[in-house]
């Protein structure tokens, strides 16, 4: 298969699988498999989907490095935007269905409950990334775009903490997601270090002291 063909195939796969949880929820509303507390179920499904998509998004760059197959980078934006889509659903369900748009309840939750505080922060940090995901913004922000989009590391970490602080005793899944996140971040460290060395080498050309 040509490179162009396989990346197109991957994109189709991405769209189909990323829409699967939404389709499962939509069908469940009519077919009744969301259980007797559907608000809770839908909140959990959209939240977990957000975290998984964030981790997959963060796996794109290491995958590109390892496989040296550059087209894979084209999956990063749709993955990130799907993560934002599910985060927005998650947030809206919590605000509208769980708390009935009662601003005082919502505010109280954000201020007083650390797991909601961090979850809310993670969502807020994702908003500028979604807005600046267009070609126009990438051009306008230039190198600052890369800096700005490092916020996804913060969002992913806050998301995992949000999940970890929510569960009562069974921390296996949040710990698994946190471990994956840690691995994805650790793989970046040698590259950051190399870049930093390059930069230093570039800026420190004149004051080479001669012993």
């Amino acid at each position, binding site marked *: 298969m040509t490179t162009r063909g396989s990346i197109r195939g991957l994109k189709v796969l991405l769209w189909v699988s990323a829409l699967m949880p939404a389709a499962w929820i939509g069908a469940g509303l009519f077919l009744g498999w969301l*259980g*007797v*507390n559907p*608000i*809770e179920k839908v909140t959990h499904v959209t939240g977990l989907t957000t975290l998984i998509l964030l981790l997959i998004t963060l796996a794109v760059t290491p995958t590109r490095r390892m496989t040296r197959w550059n087209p894979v980078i084209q999956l990063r934006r749709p993955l990130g935007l799907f993560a934002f889509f599910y985060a927005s659903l998650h947030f809206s369900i919590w605000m509208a*269905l*769980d*708390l*009935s748009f009662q601003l005082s*309840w919502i505010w*109280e*939750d954000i201020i*007083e*409950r*650390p*797991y909601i505080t961090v979850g809310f922060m993670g969502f807020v940090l994702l908003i500028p990334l979604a807005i600046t995901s267009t070609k126009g913004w990438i051009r306008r922000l230039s190198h600052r775009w890369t800096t700005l989009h490092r916020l996804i590391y913060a969002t992913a970490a806050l998301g995992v903490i949000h999940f970890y*602080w*929510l*569960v*009562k*005793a*069974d921390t*296996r899944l949040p710990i698994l997601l946190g471990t994956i996140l840690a691995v994805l971040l650790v793989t970046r460290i040698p590259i950051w270090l190399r870049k930093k060395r390059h930069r230093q080498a570039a800026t420190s050309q004149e004051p080479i002291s001669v012993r």
Partner: protein
Amino acid sequence: MIIRRPPDIPSSEITPEGVFLNRRAFIKQAAAGTAALAITPSVVSGLQRSIRSQDPDFADLESELSEPVNSWNEITSYNNFYEFGTAKEDPSRNSGSFNPKPWTVAIEGHVNNPGTFELDEFLAPHRIEDRVYRMRCVEAWSMVIPWRGFPLADLIRRAEPTGNAKFVEFTTVVRPDEMPGQRMRVLDFPYIEGLRMDEAMHPLTMLITGVYGDDLPNQNGAPLRLVVPWKYGFKGIKSIVKIRFVEEMPMNTWWFTNAREYGFYANVNPEVDHPRWSQARERRIGELRRRETLMFNGYADQVANMYSELDLTRWI
């Protein structure tokens, strides 16, 4: 030791009206000395049919709490019973191979009449009755459940605790072969719960053997569980194999697991939030908008006097 009996709850608070208990018929039968049970069999079987077949009529069942009773499906498909897994649907999915028969219950500790009893023998002396109670989970959801069982106080009187018995400790069965959640060690099994003696003697405190007039399903704690309606649901220990009368306050499983978030008393209290979520409101299963949570889950008139000396913000 003085065992103070708190004022009885008005019967109107605890007896389901009309629907499942035709009181007039019951009184007549009781007067005639013919009724061992509070429910006439035909009413029960008719009700179970309607619940099981999801007849929309069940939604109209009103308890005398003037709150709708939750359906059989809601009560038996949405459970916290970590012995069978931590997701709400796990207990109904994973409890199929659990076998609550035969079953024995041990009475131990500071009592004059200790022993190990076959379940039938254990239940035989007691008058089984039906009660509709609110059930408020510490996770801020709630249900209204028609339980069947008998007051724990009846058992305690027969066991004859000695003066050293200050608390009652309950233990859940350990059967990792039949309880997949116990193989995961999410909690330190066996599950333990405890009550102060006056709480255990309170007429609202029930040992439960059934729901909706039927035997307890496995996922609800078959064949014997505790229900303390003014406390968070986790106090309602399930599948009990041991009841021990002790002098020291027993350490219950959730208190042991996370003392900052769960305590011994676990009284429903809208004014004392769980560290991670508000306890001021709750979602009644089947309802969209959250309800205000009631002090002591709406049983304050019957139980508040037991805690007049207790700082409820400290003793969570």
